[in-house]
């Protein structure tokens, strides 16, 4: 408990009156903010506008990235399955264009189609795990006509369809972009005679929640852009990692490896429906092959204590003597190792030492390894 009080006191005393250098640019910005007539609001708004443009550019980059990824996936398929190259290339470019289409226009397309074909009276769950994107688009736009085949009929607009859920393996056959979902047909819905159905008929639209994710698996940190391919007036997203969003097209970064179930809750005046998608984020950093013995005698074999690292961004290693106590060696560089000497430069005696390795992977995964290493000096 004494420790506990100390830590509070230590930080409180250190930071209560702590001062830090201020970039002179800050005053310039504040000054222009308060002198621009409307004061800070205008300046803040201007700053946010720039932020949005940058975010937009980033979104484009994400789309471009996913297209490239998709294309390279298909290329590897060509090599491994020796399919007809020309056909495959055509398919690839089609997929790419559909992929772009799906990012930008699919929501609009499918909702238009659904408005035109609103004669359907049942619910459809589009659920094609292995279909390519163009098929998925057809599935969504044609879903109303095929709806009865899925036997999910709805007579009550408060009914909540069970969310569909998918999990894909890591194989290259898994599509990088998928559409799935659930939709609920409002029982009051009437066939639309006019293509230009306006917003005041929102309540008569079938409420649908269909998550579109531009990718569903990848290495951490993984950026995923989501959208709802269904129709709803308000969306809320739960990314399964403690964060949430109410945006229509949220882009979310999964910092750490793991399996995240992303839930979309779509609402309009008639009720709410939800959809789920599983995102797999793979860990790519690791610390392996930590030896338990080494012999620093200069014979060129096992003279140094070190270990293997994969995609580690920062590290701290400390070696303690078990016998005498106290730090023997310490390093913070990725290429560090222990040559069996004390910090004084003298040879450390034979015996058992304790290592403590703390590292952070570029994927945000922390690694903590602690164990013993035996130092032996053979003549």
């Amino acid at each position, binding site marked *: 408990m004494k420790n*506990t009080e100390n830590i509070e006191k230590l930080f409180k005393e250190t930071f209560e009156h702590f001062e830090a250098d201020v970039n002179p640019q800050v005053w310039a910005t504040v000054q222009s903010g*308060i002198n621009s007539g409307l004061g800070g609001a205008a300046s*803040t708004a201007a700053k946010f506008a720039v932020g949005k443009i940058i975010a937009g550019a980033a979104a484009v980059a994400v789309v471009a990235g996913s297209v490239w990824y998709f294309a390279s996936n298909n290329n590897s398929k060509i090599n491994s399955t020796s399919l007809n190259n020309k056909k495959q290339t055509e398919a690839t470019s089609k997929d790419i264009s559909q992929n772009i289409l799906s990012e930008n226009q699919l929501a609009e397309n499918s909702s238009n189609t659904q408005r035109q074909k609103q004669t359907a009276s049942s619910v459809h769950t589009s659920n094609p795990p292995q279909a390519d994107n163009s098929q998925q688009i057809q599935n969504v736009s044609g879903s109303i006509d095929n709806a009865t085949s899925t036997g999910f009929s709805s007579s009550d607009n408060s009914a909540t369809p069970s969310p569909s859920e998918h999990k894909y393996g890591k194989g290259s056959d898994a599509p990088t972009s998928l559409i799935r979902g659930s939709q609920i047909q409002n029982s009051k819905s009437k066939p639309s005679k006019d293509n230009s159905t306006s917003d005041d008929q929102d309540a008569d639209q079938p409420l649908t929640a269909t998550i579109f994710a531009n990718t569903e698996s990848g290495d951490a940190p993984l950026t995923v852009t989501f959208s709802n391919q269904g129709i709803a007036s308000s969306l809320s997203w739960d990314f399964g*990692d403690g964060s949430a969003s109410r945006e229509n097209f949220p882009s979310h970064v999964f910092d750490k490896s793991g399996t995240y179930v992303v839930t979309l809750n779509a609402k309009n005046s008639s009720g709410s429906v939800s959809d789920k998608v599983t995102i797999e984020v793979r860990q790519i950093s690791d610390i392996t092959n930590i030896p338990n013995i080494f012999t620093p005698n200069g014979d060129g074999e096992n003279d140094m204590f070190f270990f293997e690292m994969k995609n580690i961004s920062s590290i701290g290693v400390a070696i*303690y003597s078990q016998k005498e106590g106290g*730090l023997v060696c*310490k390093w913070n560089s990725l290429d560090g190792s222990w040559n069996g000497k004390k910090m004084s430069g003298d040879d450390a005696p034979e015996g058992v030492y304790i290592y403590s390795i703390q590292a952070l992977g570029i994927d945000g995964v922390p690694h903590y390894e602690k164990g013993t290493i035996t130092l032996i000096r053979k003549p």
Partner: protein
Amino acid sequence: MTDEELARGCVSKNPAAQKLLFERFSRKMMGVCIRYADRTDEAEDMLQNGFIRVFEKIESFRGTGSLEGWIRRIMVNESLTHLRKNKIMKINIDIDDVQFMISGNNPLTGGENLNEKDLLKMIQQLPTGFRTVFNMYAIEGYSHKEIGEQLGISEGTSKSQYSRAKIHLQNWLQLEKASFEQVDNRH
């Protein structure tokens, strides 16, 4: 010029008073923002928006408390707003998932006696949720109830976030201490 005179000058939008107020408090307030941010440029954004807010709201400063305390509260609010907008607060993070890093790029500078730069580095390396709660409770002196209201979490969550943050800081301090003194008995 007293704080009250300075505040009055800012109410009448006197540019010299505004500059003076900024000069008087900006280093202290940067010291606040830098604890809530994990990067300097982020702290500068908080500071900038905070001061714009200060000049907007200066009429509402009643002079009942200290001007510094009033500005500080605005800075904390502005920092929280910034974090809410730009960060995943990760309030639900599991303690076992988090370990302290001795950053390879920024080795501690203080040696045996940890200086404020080292301690700041430790705070900044806390996950955002931990860092926010720790700052508000331990340094700003908010109650867990107030923190809960500000962050939209329960009082209990604030308490557990705080104790977890503290455990991390303690472990890290101990490791650093052990580096310079003796290996502790846990081994």
